[in-house]
């Protein structure tokens, strides 16, 4: 069923508006032309944010130049969590409405999200050593982000572990939804428990405890990291759709010959 849908690019039984927009063929036609633009915007924003943060923003009063690691660490952490939220949403659509596009997206979000989580963990360790005096401590924030990394790895392995892709998609969707309970734990860990990790600096309701000349590069780098994530996932989903189409065409050709 899925294969024929992917080859024809049309869903025979159009159930709802959801299926209208979740059609892989339509996604390909919509996204492929704007991919180069997405890539250009993400590179420009990320490079601007990071160069601004590392070369032009002022050093911190307490931590000096070491605080500049935040221009990589904080955006990576935010994107890692947002990526998992996106994975959970895709899994939700996949499990209830059996969307072919949601399955594909879930499969492609995993490795990208794991990559951003890895960047967050490594940059955090490199920040922790000079400031705290330790690369790693088992406090609630660090441990919950490590759990997030393992959830990503588990999802990557599980979704590819079955001969029948539909079984893999369903099992991995359940894992992703169960793991989503970790997201509020990561966010609130620094408020609920004593942690060595600092509390929240940026607040959406009220004052952010960061000077404006350090906030701007941080926000630009964050926007850049988000765009990088979106671009990478879109490119991977496009490639996966093409791969399935190619597989379907090759199969059809082999059947005609045989």
């Amino acid at each position: 069923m899925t294969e024929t849908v992917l080859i024809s690019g049309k869903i025979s039984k159009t159930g709802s508006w959801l299926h209208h927009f979740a059609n892989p063929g339509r996604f390909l036609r919509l996204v492929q032309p704007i991919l180069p633009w997405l890539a250009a915007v993400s590179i420009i924003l990320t490079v601007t944010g990071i160069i601004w943060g590392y070369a032009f923003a002022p050093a911190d009063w307490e931590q000096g130049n070491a605080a500049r690691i935040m221009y990589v660490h904080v955006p990576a952490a935010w994107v890692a969590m947002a990526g998992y939220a996106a994975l959970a949403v895709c899994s939700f659509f996949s499990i209830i409405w059996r969307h072919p596009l949601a399955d594909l997206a879930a499969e492609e979000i995993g490795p990208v999200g794991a990559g951003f989580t890895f960047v967050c963990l490594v940059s955090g360790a490199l920040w922790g050593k000079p400031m705290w005096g330790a690369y790693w401590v088992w406090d609630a924030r660090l441990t919950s982000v490590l759990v997030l990394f393992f959830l990503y790895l588990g999802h990557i392995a599980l979704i590819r572990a079955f001969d029948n892709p539909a079984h893999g998609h369903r099992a991995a969707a359940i894992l992703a939804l169960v793991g989503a309970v970790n997201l509020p734990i990561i966010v609130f860990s620094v408020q609920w428990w004593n942690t060595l990790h600092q509390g929240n600096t940026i607040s959406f309701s009220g004052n952010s405890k960061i000077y404006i000349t350090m906030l701007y590069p941080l926000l630009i780098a964050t926007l850049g990291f988000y765009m990088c994530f979106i671009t990478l996932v879109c490119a991977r989903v496009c490639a996966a759709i093409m791969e399935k189409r190619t597989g379907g065409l090759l199969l059809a050709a082999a059947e005609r010959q045989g």
Partner: protein
Amino acid sequence: MRSRKQKRLFLVLACGICLSAATGLTLAAFSSTLTYFLSPGSVLAKKPAPGLEFRLGGVVQVGTVATTINHGSPTTAFRVTDGTASIPVTYTGVLPDLFREGQGIVAIGAMTTGGTFAADEVLAKHGSTYMPKDVEQALRKAGKWNPKFGPPPAADTWNTMPVKSTNS
């Protein structure tokens, strides 16, 4: 008659509610063990046995830091406070760069029979406030804040403060 999609939706939502409730209750039950460190107040209340290793966290009390050199290695004595209670700490070795009076720290070690905390390791816990050095100096000069005594004032009082040289 409900459709299969609706059935799946209700099933997933019900599972989600149960799972969230279970996680919430578990975390509430384990909340004391999920805490990375004990404050001086809770140490005095719980009275951990001498020799039992735990982590003590708080702020280095102003005016209590004294360093002596014994056999070539520095030994620092100071008090850690949470505002209400305070505990004397000794540590032999080189302290992290961020260590200063008024700095939040986490010390790993155990109580001695004499009621002092003998630390094997001291970690610095930096604040969540980011500002250029000039702004900090300006706040100090204006008498609005001294890093030795507590956290900085609300951000709207300094976040628009002009800075002479941003590239310091």
